[in-house]
């Protein structure tokens, strides 16, 4: 099978969220960047499992500058065979998706994986956009997939449950929690990753339809009001009369 895994770079989950340049830019100082967890833990690992089952290749693709090579090397260390970096700043999901689609077109990938969303912009947009560019089915929020090499049965997370769908031929899939178990790269993988091909390609699309004008932080909480554990009637009264939520 020919498998493509779209990976992106995000601040790690405990990073301090702050902004600079008049609140128009994310403040990267002191922030550790990681591979987006949904891409790494679920999308990439499920792709590797399919390769182990059916044979084939797993290619990781990222749209971004050379600084992203560190997370791309991690994907190679975990087990991807090769990688592609589209050499441009990632400006918006539309620009990222258009570049991934331009690369994937005519390459005959059986499954194109994305994480269900990035943990920074939480857009959940790239998978559907890539699918539309390529005219492929899109199966989102997959928490389980069986694939026999030519067709797949996928469980998708939906509100309050799951939906089971069949899909045949090439398709785009977004990965939720549960699709696979996280793998930690071992020393051999890390050493081998240095010799695996990381091909840099020029961007096909630079047009970005959406940009961020400014960021704001949520209003600070007014401080917690501690309630006497013996007096739950008081808590209920406050929820009813003061917070007016019940």
């Amino acid at each position: 099978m020919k498998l493509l895994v779209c990976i992106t770079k995000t601040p790690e989950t405990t990073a301090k969220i702050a902004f600079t340049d008049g609140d128009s830019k994310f403040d990267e100082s002191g922030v550790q960047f990681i591979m987006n967890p949904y891409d790494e833990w679920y999308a990439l690992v499920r792709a590797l499992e399919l390769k182990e089952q059916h044979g084939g290749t797993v290619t990781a693709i990222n749209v971004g500058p050379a600084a992203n090579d560190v997370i791309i090397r991690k994907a190679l260390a975990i087990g991807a065979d090769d990688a592609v970096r589209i050499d441009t700043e990632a400006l918006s999901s539309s620009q990222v998706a258009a570049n991934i689609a331009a690369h994937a077109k005519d390459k005959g990938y059986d499954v194109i994986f994305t994480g269900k969303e990035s943990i920074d912009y939480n857009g959940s947009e790239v998978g559907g956009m890539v699918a539309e560019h390529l005219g492929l089915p899109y199966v989102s929020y997959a928490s389980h997939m069986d694939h026999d090499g030519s067709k797949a049965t996928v469980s998708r997370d939906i509100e309050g449950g799951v939906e089971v769908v069949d899909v045949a031929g090439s398709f785009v899939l977004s990965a939720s929690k549960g699709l696979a178990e996280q793998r930690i790269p071992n020393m051999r993988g890390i050493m081998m990753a240095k010799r695996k091909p990381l091909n840099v390609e020029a961007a096909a699309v630079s047009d970005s339809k959406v940009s961020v004008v400014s960021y704001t932080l949520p209003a600070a909480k007014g401080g917690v009001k501690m309630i006497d554990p013996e007096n739950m009637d008081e808590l209920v009264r406050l929820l009813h009369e003061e917070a007016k939520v019940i």
Partner: protein
Amino acid sequence: MSVLVLAESPKGKFKKAAYEAVHYGHKAAQSLGGECVALVIGACDDPGALGTYGASKVIHVADYAGGIDALVYASIIGQVAGQVGAKAVVVNHSSTGKSIAGRVGVKMDAGVVSQVNSVPVAEDGGITVTKPVFSGKAFAKCKIAGDKCVLSLMGNALPIEEVGSPCAVEAGSVDIPANSVTVKETKTVDGEVPLPEAELVVSAGRGMKGPENWGIIDELAKTIGATTACSRPVADTGWRPHHEHVGQTGVAIRPNLYIAAGISGAIQHLAGVNSSKCIVVINKDPEAPFFKAADYGVCADLFDVVPRLTEAFKKMKDA
């Protein structure tokens, strides 16, 4: 110019999300100019009801029964958007809407902003709208270049108002492409509001000591009609099902009331719940970081406090 809104009708019935999307579309139409047209795909008992929330008409593509298929939905939305001259398309930020928004954006060559929580405004030669980013730890004002946009609306973002009366329903005339996926089965929990839509949520964590102790949480949730949730360690150890896990890598929720018992409040958990309007934290550890994010705190053993709180709610309901 018009704003086209996809109103989801699972099992033939609208839920609150459909009215939210239509009412948001109505406000977007007021802001950008034009009218709000609602689109219903598949079976629906009462499509005209959307007029009450601001749709000026409803287009109903009734003869489709192929389930949620992003390719088919995007094709239908693209065709109807062309017919009604829609430059803005609104969907819910739901499993369905999120699957479709990107596809429709590419089809219409429009800018896509997901999880919006404000009404779009035309300014500076584009359209601006806000959305939460970094899992709710901040908000971004986004600018869409040009005059075409696809927006997915965050749940519980804006209040719904009744602004009109039931409206005319037109049968949609579209070419429906062959299904790209086959929906075999839909398994949902009946009788409980799904977490992303829930207004009241009762959640518990490792402080529960074991899955056999969950009766007091279920009892509290049942008393106020809340949906139950849990922290990540609890889902990972199999004490509770994965779909109950709220947090950065689980479900993000924004209920009116979130009651958390025995959850310390790791930053990843807060990311999934910090959009809740009111947070009550019950924890016996006074140093639990969750208290800093709470509106009300009770520092005591949850096995004493939770049953007492349930009794207090029962007393209020009986009063």
